[in-house]
């Protein structure tokens, strides 16, 4: 297993923001981390890269096994070596990873020279090759451009190129396409998915859009208010979501032939971390199936039909798993 997160808990000050979160992703797989804003997706990403320490976060329990090594206990210098080399982090704003004053080529070259010890000339040849593979037209010319000369979609490809230049094994992408146009979003997401399969990289894709999850993820982990609601293979989840929250999130995306009025959304909103209850299901306020038990007991995780579900009253299990063409 490339990355295995087990019972990860995280606090900032007195707030317990992640509560026993578990998931795993292997080489050649895309894991979707999905939930509404405020569900803990970005914090999970920051915890995986150790960056959460910079905002005062403390891992209070659990392990983050990357290629067998526990990152949760690793000191900052060792983490920094991993970040940018074996683990790459892509955010919604590509400029957070780019230097406005350096050319695209210099920035991508630098990664390869630093991590792989390539010469200037070899690094540039590799940069151009990577940019071309990411379907950037006129890659040699783009390498001489500055970030402000490129569109948002192009800049995001350059950030992906930097991850590839370092030969990253795990890419964590936090809403990488939210700021982009739909046609460009589709391009970037498909490029990422292709890279994962071809180069056997692991990808954790953070999104609030179940449409994106359905189209490119192999595995999905649904987060709600700092806890895992449901996780497992994507086909199984979409064929028959068991957790009422997963079902509600899927129902938020319009689909072909949906009856008028069928798109309802989820009433209310995600509770703030200060209002998290402990001995309860945190979705109870918004859940159509909630009863007294849900309000006084944390739902245990059960594993059934390949899915892990944390719910007292899950939706029915589909009898036979459907076949999905790949």
């Amino acid at each position, binding site marked *: 297993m490339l990355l295995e997160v087990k019972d990860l808990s995280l606090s900032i000050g007195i707030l317990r923001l992640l509560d026993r979160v578990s998931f795993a992703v292997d080489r050649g797989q895309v894991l979707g981390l999905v939930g509404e804003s405020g569900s803990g997706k970005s914090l999970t990403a920051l915890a995986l890269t150790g960056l959460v320490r910079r905002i005062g976060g403390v891992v209070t329990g659990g392990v983050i096994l990357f290629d067998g090594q526990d990152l949760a206990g690793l000191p900052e210098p060792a983490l920094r070596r991993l970040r940018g080399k074996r683990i790459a982090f892509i955010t919604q704003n590509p400029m957070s990873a780019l230097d406005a004053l350096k050319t695209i080529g210099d920035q991508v070259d630098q990664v390869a020279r630093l991590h792989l010890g390539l010469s200037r000339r070899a690094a540039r040849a590799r940069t151009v090759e990577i940019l071309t593979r990411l379907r950037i037209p006129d890659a040699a010319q783009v390498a001489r451009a500055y970030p402000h000369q490129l569109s948002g979609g192009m800049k995001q490809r350059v950030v992906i190129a930097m991850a590839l230049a370092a030969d990253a094994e795990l890419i964590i992408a936090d809403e990488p396409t939210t700021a982009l146009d739909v046609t460009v979003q589709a391009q970037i997401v498909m490029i990422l998915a292709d890279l994962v399969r071809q180069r056997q990289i692991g990808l954790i894709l953070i999104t609030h859009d179940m449409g994106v999850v359905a189209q490119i993820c192999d595995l999905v982990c649904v987060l709600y208010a700092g806890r895992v609601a449901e996780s497992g293979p994507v086909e199984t989840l979409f064929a028959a979501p068991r957790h009422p929250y997963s079902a509600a999130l899927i129902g938020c995306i319009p689909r072909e032939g949906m009856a008028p009025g069928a798109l309802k959304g*989820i009433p209310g909103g995600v509770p703030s971390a200060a209002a998290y209850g402990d001995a309860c299901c945190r979705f109870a306020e918004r859940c159509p199936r909630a009863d007294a038990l849900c309000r006084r007991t944390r739902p245990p995780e059960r594993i059934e039909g390949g899915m892990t579900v944390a719910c007292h009253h899950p939706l029915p299990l589909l009898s036979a798993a459907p076949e999905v063409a790949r």
Partner: protein
Amino acid sequence: MTKAAEPSAGADPILALSGLTRRFQSGGGFLRPARSMTAVRDLDLTVARGDCVGVVGESGCGKSTLARLAMRLIEPSAGRILFEGADVTHIRGRRLRALRKKLQMVFQDPYASLDPRYTVRDCLEEPFRALGEKVPAGRVEQLLDQVGLPRAFAGNYPHQMSGGQRQRVGIARALAYRPDLIVLDEPTASLDVSIQAQIIALLQDLQRQHGLTYLFISHDLGLVRYFCSRIVVMYLGSVVEVLEDPQAAPAHPYTAALMASSFTPDPTARATIAPMEGEIPSPFALPPGCPFAPRCPRALDRCRSAYPPTVPTARGRVACFNPIEA
């Protein structure tokens, strides 16, 4: 240019735009010549009373400019705007204020459109005050009821509310005068999918209860196909296709590409995602001929030299030399 007449769209057009054009000058400084671009070009559109017309396209296609033109917030460079049969293209003063009562707008960013120093009550009373009118007794409470906000919210400031709640206030404000037509410019684009679905359901309820007409601007074709009864597709300032039936198959290659770029929440539909190559060219350096030609898989030689005429189709009209046959 040949043009298929805009069908009168039912017996009772509330808004009719014809030949509407808006040019912008940009740049123009020391040693830099000003450049000009056409944000909306020769646009014809009729909106029938009670209809919900969706305008869809990617960033820079001119959707927001169209909304601001229709609202008379900016002046057209050419063309006419008829509201309930009367020419309102150049009205001002008292007549324009009277028009504003019947024609309201909801903006994309509910935070930017609400004054941080105003309470919800101030904000909902403001449209009346602006015209020196008395606020009808109980109107604020009534508006809060209509948009599903507790009456106690009247004393809240914008920063005390979530994005979805702020957008409800934005909608309540647009309803204050009991308008006939509401222009909605990406009202859900900055919201979570769960909240987006709530807002769409609210808009559908309001339309039914108050017999409203909507002009709904969005970059999300899936959402428009669900919500709207008629679809207008824009690319680089021009209408490229009108679909009278939102479920109809597209005839324009750009509409087809938008459809193939949308991620439906169904893993069995993976094969249908086919991202198109390239990005939108700069509006300051448009290619001659069809503006979509550089990205179009169906482009013919003449697409690169002449602007395609608009021709009727079985499902609406299309501006294309080589439309996809039904």
